[in-house]
């Protein structure tokens, strides 16, 4: 997507978007690492917060209320019932279909490096779990993996998850932040927009709800596909959400953009979102929503009551930090 070159709020240099974000160590967190970094400096208000308070506040700055970016496991830890998450399809990795290689860059090498640095095989983690006891299929994007750009693996995992949700009569929650389509897979990336949205059309035909949570930043192909056709669309306060990034818009149109442009609140005003929800309220809010979106409760209940193994299948998540 041309909009991929957004300016993420926390990294003024767009080139930063393929590097890991400040709040998260470049390496997977090791025991003791938190102790080494005692203070968190807010990228917005520059105030310092003792790291343990910051974590206890769900990484929301207590001074200016900015929700900081989270890695996939932090987000699921904050959201899902402890120990309820089971990951699916974690073994899928990118295949470099274009054999993308320039004088300065090789996609294959970049993939390898990023996998090592992030501990992930790609930018989307998918699986199932529970929120306040309610089962759901869940996909969460991790911006540290090449800006959670949507390539073949992202798309395939999301589609498999939708198909999994249909098969098991589960509602679907997607948590998206993304710089857009992954350029290195060219048109394959564009087609993930068609593929994921088509899978969600099937989910809808099966009368299963899709709730989309947009977190900062969310742009390009991800905004222009599966997220914006969800039954209910939520966003975190202040999250930047759009099709084209502000820099592209300013360069293309010479328009000066208004204060608050493309924030979650801006989108809410323009009718594109259902609600802006604070991080601390998300679990209860999602649970309430899932309760209200239940269709034919008996059928749904049966699907679970009669699969007791399901209960046992919620194993301890592979969640660190």
């Amino acid at each position, binding site marked *: *997507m*041309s*909009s*991929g*070159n957004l300016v993420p709020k926390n990294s003024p240099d*767009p*080139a930063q978007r393929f590097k890991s974000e400040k709040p998260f160590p470049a390496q997977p967190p090791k025991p003791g690492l938190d102790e080494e970094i005692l203070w968190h400096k807010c990228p917005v208000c520059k105030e310092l917060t003792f790291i343990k308070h910051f974590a206890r506040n769900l990484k929301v700055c207590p001074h200016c209320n900015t929700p900081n970016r989270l890695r996939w496991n932090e987000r699921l830890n904050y959201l899902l019932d402890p120990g309820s998450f*089971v*990951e*699916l399809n*974690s*073994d*899928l*990795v990118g295949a470099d279909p*274009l054999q993308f290689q320039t004088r300065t*860059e090789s996609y294959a090498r970049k993939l390898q490096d990023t996998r090592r640095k992030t501990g992930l095989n790609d930018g989307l983690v998918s699986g*199932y779990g529970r929120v306040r006891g309610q089962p759901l299929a869940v996909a969460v994007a991790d911006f540290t993996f090449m800006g959670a750009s949507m390539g*073949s*693996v992202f*798309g*395939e995992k999301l*589609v498999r998850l939708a*198909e*999994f949700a249909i*098969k*098991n009569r589960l509602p679907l929650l997607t948590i998206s932040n993304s710089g*857009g389509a992954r350029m290195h897979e*060219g*048109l*394959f990336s*564009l*087609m*993930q*927009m*068609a*593929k994921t*949205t*088509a899978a*969600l*059309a099937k989910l809808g035909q099966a009368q299963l709800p899709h709730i989309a949570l947009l977190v900062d930043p969310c742009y390009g*192909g991800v*905004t*222009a*596909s599966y997220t*914006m*056709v969800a039954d209910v669309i939520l966003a975190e306060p202040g999250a930047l959400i*759009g*099709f*084209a990034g502000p820099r*592209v*818009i300013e360069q*293309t*149109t010479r328009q000066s953009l*208004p204060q608050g*442009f*493309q924030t979650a609140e801006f989108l809410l005003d323009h009718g*594109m979102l259902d609600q802006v929800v604070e991080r601390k309220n998300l679990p209860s809010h999602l649970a309430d929503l899932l309760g209200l979106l239940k269709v034919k409760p008996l059928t749904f209940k049966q699907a679970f009551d009669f699969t007791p*193994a*399901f209960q046992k*299948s919620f194993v301890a998540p592979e969640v660190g930090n």
Partner: protein
Amino acid sequence: MSTTAIDPVVERVGVITSPLPVAPVPVEDTWQKVKLARHPERPHTHDYISRLFSGYIELHGDRRFGDDQALIGGLACFEGRNVVVMGQQKGKDTRDNIKRNFGMPCAEGYRKALRLFRLGEKFGFPIICFIDTPGAYPGLQSEERGVAQAIAENLLVLAALRVPVIATIIGEGGSGGALAIGLADRVLMLENSIYSVASPEASAAILWHDASLASEAATSMKVAAPQILQMGLIDEVIQEPDGGAHTNPSESAGLLKAALLRNLEELEFETGETNGGIDGLLEKRYWKFRSMGAWQQA
């Protein structure tokens, strides 16, 4: 993955595209294609509509906000059958290009397309789309009115639209702004058209923060029709006259018409009641895009 009573489904997915390596093409060759695809005299959507269809009546407006001149469409007759035809429209000259916003639709353009999709579906008319855009318009108003939402909704609706849909990239096919009318049963490309996840300039800006590396980006991203056919992401490349479509628009229209007709007849045959009907068509359409991707198991 842990053992569970939940059926993981995914084991049954087996028809994934595993594209063969596509041979690299010299940078100059790719850039030549890009220049041809953007040639100012290249026939645009309206040129093909007027040459291929009879009785075209343009319909206007999204019934919500405006009438986007960057995406036109309406009713027409194609070889004896009524169809809905549409496409992004680039301008003939600077003045026309300003009116047409250089073929970059806003939200209301895609919502007009949506209205036309639904009109065709209501009456059982096939949908013929011509793609020719650098991308959806990246502008303030476009964002305010939710161009991303409009594109997404088109994808959702096209994925389940109960009539045959054929899309042809006739010039530039850039980003979601192209795909928004390109989720089709058959996707064709003119020989010198390009199709890419973002325009070459935008891709270079994203990849290397330097739009001047557009030709390198286009080359690395393999945007030319024959390469995309080889990758299995489109169904057919339609030959153009020597030197490109603009050298002989009427010959080019003839070649396009023959390809459209053949594909449409095939789809009509496939949707016959003994051959799976519309439900069969939709299932094939789903798997067509469902299968696009390339990965490996770690």
